[in-house]
Structure formats: C-alpha cells, structure tokens
C-alpha cells in the first residue's frame, strides 16, 4: 500500500468510526438517504472537518468582477475572495461518500447482525468470462497487439534481422498471440423483498417516515447480503395495490383497513414471480395495528400460516404507533406465531425505536 493509500484508509477508518458512533442518530433521521447515488450515499459529517476560529456566515463580503447593479445577488461560488481565504473556506457542510456496502458493514457490526445463510441450493449460478491468459491461436479480434509485436521483435533480434535505425516488424504466423479466457462460475443467491404498508387514514406522515427509514436500512443490509435484490411495494387500505416506490411512500387514503387484501396480493406476486426454491423472500408489513373486524384478522392468519410464512425466509411485522390505531393486530399475531423463528414482530415506538426494531428484524440471520 502506498503512503497516500494508507492515509486514505486512515481517513475511511475515521469516517466509519464517526458514523458508527452516530449511527443511532442517523437511523432516526431521514436526511441520510436524500443524497443517495447508485452505490454510495453522501453523509453530512461536518464534525470531521477541523474547526478553526474564523468569520461567520456573511463574512466580510468581498470583491467580484463583472457586470451587475448594486443589490443584485451574487451567485454561490461567485465573487469568492482572492487569496487563500477563498481557497478552502467553502461555507458548505462537509460530506463524505460512503458506499452502501460499507454502510451495511457498519450497520452489521454496530447492531451485531449475523450474516445471512442463504437458503436453497446454490441453484442459481452466474458465469463470468475473465480474460487472463495468452495463447497462440484464436480469433483475430482477440489478437494481443503488444505481445505479438514483442514476439516479432524477439524473433528478429534472434535472427539478427533487426535494424534499430529502421525498425520494421512483420509478424508472421508464429508470432501471433491471442487473449484467452477462463470461465468463472459464481453461485448467486437472489432475494426479493415485498414491503406492505397500511395507508389508511390513521397512518400519518410521521408513521410513513418511520417506515421509509426502516425500509432504507433493511434494503441496505439485505443488498449487502445478496447479489440481486428485487423490491416490490404494496399499499393497502380496504383493498391492496402494487405500486412503485415513490407512490408507496406518498400515498394517503382515508378508507378503512383490511390487511388480508395486502397478504393476498403478496402471495399472488410471489406465486407469479418468485418460486421459493430459487428465491430468498423477505416480507415486511407495517401498520398501526388497526384491522377491520368481521373476521379479517382470521383470514390474515390463515394466509400467513398456509402461504406466506412457509415460502418466506422472514416475515416481519412492524407496528408503528399512531394516535389512532388500536394496536391490536400485533397481539393477534403474537398469539399465533410466538414460537415461529421466521416471524418477527416489532413494536416501533417512534423514531427512537427504529434502531431496536431493525435489530429485531435482521437479528436472526434468516
């Protein structure tokens, strides 16, 4: 490792340490994943910057160059002060990029989450082609230019026909070299998550925000465990719909609640797309615990018992406290599934409960 790489590694180490220390806080705030890229998120970490006595916002103003009347705004980054003052004193909050894998690692270490042992035969495999070797025969498209010329050079030097003043190479058949490949076989486990959420009138914005944060962390963890992760979203009040992610978090209905509709929908989706012998299936359902009477809860339990739980690695039910919900549903589930390893029930008491709830959901390593 070169010197700068050691310093860079040191920097990452410190960043991870800070995030770990603050993880509980991050987990109760939504701002983290506002800055999500494909594989990285930017985490605001102003404390990592070295503080100094300096001038506050507004500063002393400064001098710029160009057109404009007094009173006209000067855009960000414009009119920076010449000299060293403008060089490193951006007023922006320092952000560091952390890959989702790293974040999952921190999450796993901090919550002491066990690695997941994927179920099912290693039936799904992927084959990669890696070009790693050289051989004497092959298609012209794979000809290795440099190696071929090197062989040619060697041959000519050996034959004494090489003239450094007039270096001309004419590769002959024997000089030609081609790239060759090996097939690398990777076992791959695929996973699907189905999120279900009650969007009836009693679920407010705060409740949904909690679900959003929970799902972010669940995604992050499972994504680090599985190569492929498919995510499906179901919202329900008295009837269920499959929706996209955006809609999932921003829909609000006013109807009543029939949970069985969501479970039926989930069973349909799994049946159509994710044969359980090939897929690791995760189901998460969030609600405030209110369900209509009229025997719907019995229907739910029946679907869970006969269809969903047997097919899934995990069925997680998160009950988010709301001022309107009765919170009855978790009791019914507990009564039925108290001894089932695959069913995790979590009572989420506001944002501070997210941390503990994630630990409950993912702590079993299913």
């Amino acid at each position: 490792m070169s010197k700068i790489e050691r310093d860079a590694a040191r920097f990452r180490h410190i960043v991870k340490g800070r995030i770990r220390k603050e993880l509980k806080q991050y987990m109760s705030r939504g701002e983290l994943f506002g800055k999500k890229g494909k594989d990285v998120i930017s985490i605001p970490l102003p404390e990592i910057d070295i503080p100094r006595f300096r001038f506050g916002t507004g500063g002393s103003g400064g001098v710029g160059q160009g057109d404009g009347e007094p009173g006209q705004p000067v855009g960000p980054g414009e009119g920076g002060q010449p000299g060293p003052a403008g060089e490193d004193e951006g007023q922006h909050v320092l952000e560091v990029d952390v890959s989702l894998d790293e974040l999952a690692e921190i999450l796993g270490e901090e919550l002491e989450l066990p690695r997941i042992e994927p179920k099912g035969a290693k039936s799904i495999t992927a084959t990669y082609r890696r070009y790693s070797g050289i051989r004497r025969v092959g298609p012209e498209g794979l000809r290795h230019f440099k190696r071929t010329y090197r062989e040619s050079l060697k041959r000519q030097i050996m034959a004494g026909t090489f003239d450094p003043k007039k270096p001309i190479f004419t590769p002959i058949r024997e000089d030609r070299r081609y790239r060759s490949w090996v097939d690398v076989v990777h076992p791959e486990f695929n996973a699907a998550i189905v999120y279900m959420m009650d969007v009836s009138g009693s679920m407010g914005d705060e409740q949904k925000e909690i679900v959003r944060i929970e799902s972010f962390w669940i995604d992050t963890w499972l994504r680090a465990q599985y190569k492929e992760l498919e995510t499906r979203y179901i919202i329900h009040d008295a009837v269920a719909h499959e929706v996209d992610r955006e809609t999932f978090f921003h829909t609000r209905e006013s109807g009543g609640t029939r949970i069985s509709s969501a479970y039926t929908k989930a069973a349909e989706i799994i049946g159509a797309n994710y044969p359980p012998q090939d897929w690791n299936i995760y189901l998460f359902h969030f609600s405030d615990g209110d369900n209509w009477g009229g025997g719907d809860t019995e229907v739910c339990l029946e679907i869970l018992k006969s269809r969903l739980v047997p097919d899934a690695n995990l069925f997680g039910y998160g009950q988010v406290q709301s001022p309107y919900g009765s919170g009855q549903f978790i009791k019914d589930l507990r009564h039925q599934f108290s001894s089932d390893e695959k069913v995790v029930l979590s009572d989420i008491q506001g944002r501070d409960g997210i941390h503990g709830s994630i630990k409950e959901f993912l702590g079993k390593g299913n």
Partner: protein
Amino acid sequence: MIHTAFPSDLKAAKYRIREIVEGAGLDTYEVIFEVLDYKTINSIAAYQGFPTRYPHWRWGMEFNRLTKGYAYGLQTIYELVINNDPCYAYLLQSNEMITQKMVMAHVYGHCDFFKNNMWFSHTNRKMMDEMANHASRVRSLMARFGQDKVEEFIDVCLSLENLVDVHAGGIRRTPRTEKNGAGTDQSDGVPRLRAKSYMEDYINPPEFIVAQRASMEGKERRSKQFPSEPVRDVMAFLVEHAPAEPWQREILEIVREEALYFAPQGQTKIMNEGWASYWHSTLMTTEILDDAEIVDYAQKHAGVTANSGRQVNPYKIGIELFRDIEDRWDRGRFGVDYEMCDSFEERRDWDRHLGLGREKIFEVRRLYNDVTFIDEFLTEDFCRRNNFFSFSYNSSAERYEIESREFKRIKERLLFSLTNMGNPLIDVIDANHRNRGELLLQHRFEGTVLDLDKAIATLKNLYRVWSRPVHIASRSEKKDFVLSFDGEEITEE
C-alpha cells in the same frame, strides 16, 4: 520520493527555458522537475507538495477529493511547485508539450518569487528535509503513544494553526528593556523629558505629565498581568506556557513551524501567481514558442487566467496589476504631476518615456505582499477597467449581493479579505484570567463576527492544550461577549 525518468524532449525544453528565464533577469534556485501520472500528482498535492509528510487522515481526505475532481473532469492540477532549495516542481505526465513548456516557465516565475520576495526570506529552504524530519518524529511518537492519541492531538493543534503571527519571522514582539528619552528624575516617578529648569513647563506641560502618569500606571498594571502585552502568536505562547506533555509540545511546535512555512504563500497569493503568470506569458509569446504553437498556447493561457463567473481570479488580477505597474512606470504615469492632472486627454496620452517598468516590477516583487501590493497599486482606473464590484451579505435576503462599485469600498473589501490571510485577528491577553490560571483570548473585532459553532469547537480544542478553562472575548452585531469552556460546558456572557 518518487523518481520518474525525465524524458529528453522535456529536458531540452527545460534547459532552453532556463536560459531564457535567466536572460530575462529572473534569479531562481535550481528547479528539479518530476513527471508524474495524475494519481501520483494528486497524492503529492494532497500532501501540499511534500511527499514526505507525517501520516494523517486529512491527506487521505484531500486525496479523495482531488481524485474525484479529476475523475469528473472538474479540475486538473497543471503544476505544483514547492518553495525549497532546490525547488521541486511536478509536471503532469499526460499534458502536451506546449502545456509543459508553459508550466515550466510559470514554475521558474514562482521560484524567482520564492527566492527573492522578502516575505519568504525567513522560510526554511530545506523544508523537504524538515518535513521528513517532522514525519519521522511523528511516526516515532505514534509508535510510542499510539496512533489514535497522537493523531487526535495533531487535530487539536491544527485547529489552532491559524493563530500564528505571520510576521513572526521578521518582527520582535516582546519588548526590549525600556530605553527611551524619558528619564525619571522627579520624585513622583513619572517619566519626564529632560529639560532645563526654565524650559520645564514648556517641555513637560501638565497635560503631558497626566498622560505620562496614566501610561505609567497602565504599564504597571499590565506588568502584573501575564502576558504583559497581547500576544499574537497564540501557538508560540502555547508551546512555551501550556502545561503540555513534552510530546504534545513537540507536535505543537511541528504544526506551528509548518503553518509559518506556508504563511508567506498565503500572504502573497495574488502577487506570486501574478508574477509567475506575467513571466510565462511574456516569455512564451516572445521567446519560447514557435509560430505553430501560439494558438494552442493562447487557449491554455486564457484558461488559466479566466474568471469563473464573477469570481476574482488571483492569477488574473495579479498579472493585470503587474502589467499595469510596468506600463505606468514605463510611461511615467505616477507621482504628483500625474495625480494632479485632471485633463482626461492629457492623462490618457501621458507618456514621459521613462522606461522604468521592468525595474519597478522587480522591485515590487521583492518588497511587497498582497496587502501592501493592493494598497499601493490598485488604482481607481484599474478598478474601473476591470469592472470590479464589492459584495456583501444581505441577512434579510440571506444571500450575497453586489454592494457597490465605489473604488474606496472595493479596495477596503479587498484589503480586508487579505488581512491576516482572511483570518480573524486573535491575541492572548491574559493567561491568568480571574486569577485562576485561565486563558483569555481576545478577538479584535473589525466589523465581522466569528462563526460561533466553529468558535465553540475550537475553544474545546484549545482547552485540550491549556487544560484549564479557556475564554474568547469577541463581539456580535452590537454586544460584547465572552465565550467560555471549562471542560464541561460552554457558557456565553
């Protein structure tokens, strides 16, 4: 040190440019060019030019930032030159020949500036070695006390590194023993000027005696205080007086020394870049380039001196000012006669054929720093020609706005932003505050408030060094306040 082959075509260019540069009167150290790929050049830039620096996470952070900037095509480092004898300069391998030539000429300009500008005269010209010494000291301290502990303390020291006296190299701040004309030959001990008895009332009038007495009492009061005069170099004060462990003192000293080494570069940013740009541009267009290269060069040069948006580019303002000075002294557009002339035509066509321009700019590069440079040579004409404006923060609209196009205001703003390299002026005024060994700093308020969050965090770091409660006195918009940290909580009064 990373050594790479120095290709022969570059070597030829270097020798030629060096000859031209010397012919033009520049006086430089030997310059050693290294040709590096972008990754290596980024890593050296992260180390502020010194590949030998002590291990610390912030180099890694900076390296990540630079690498990202390069990958997104936001920035490329053209050149990197360090003030050392010999002078080291790094060239980016992937640059074309014409860029390399421009960079070399530019580097020789910097090197001449390093060697001859008086603000650099106290800097260590063997800094490459000194940095390596610092690094090996830090590494051995880390081996002994643990990397975390030492690195954390480096963070603490860095937090205070701008509290140095940038003039420390040239000025003695501690007063010498009193030796002035005022004797103390009267019984009341008030110093008077020596006078014949008949002149006594004239030389030492009553008002003078009163003032002398007040100043004497003030001095006496202060002499019981420690330090007796405010100390600008807070870092040096801590090195000497903070109850720190020897290894901590050592780190404080290292951080202070490095901060002072870099200070002149901060004090002369505009001039240094202006000087280097002046010379690359002058020499490239008159001597170095052949006809075929001139268009490519013009484009490169325009890129270097371009203003981005309405931001003032130090390269640009620097080179323009040097050219303006040269022109004024060539044509004699200075002095009382010129200043007093109020005929527009006469001023415009003013030319005394003095030809003193070259000589003048060489003098300027020796004696000035950015503050004095701008103060003396930024003229109203220049300001108007370059379309400068001043801007300020409008707190009700929460944005920066163009404030004025008035010359006086612009100059004031510019000078303020350059004073103390844009840092607040902070002194130690009492090291035995409240008679309890507490440390009191004073921010000399000049209309701009401190960033409170940063001040609090910095104060906490200061406490780590002083290990007794620490205070900083400052002002917000209208009221004086003292911010204190006693090891447990921050208080403001």
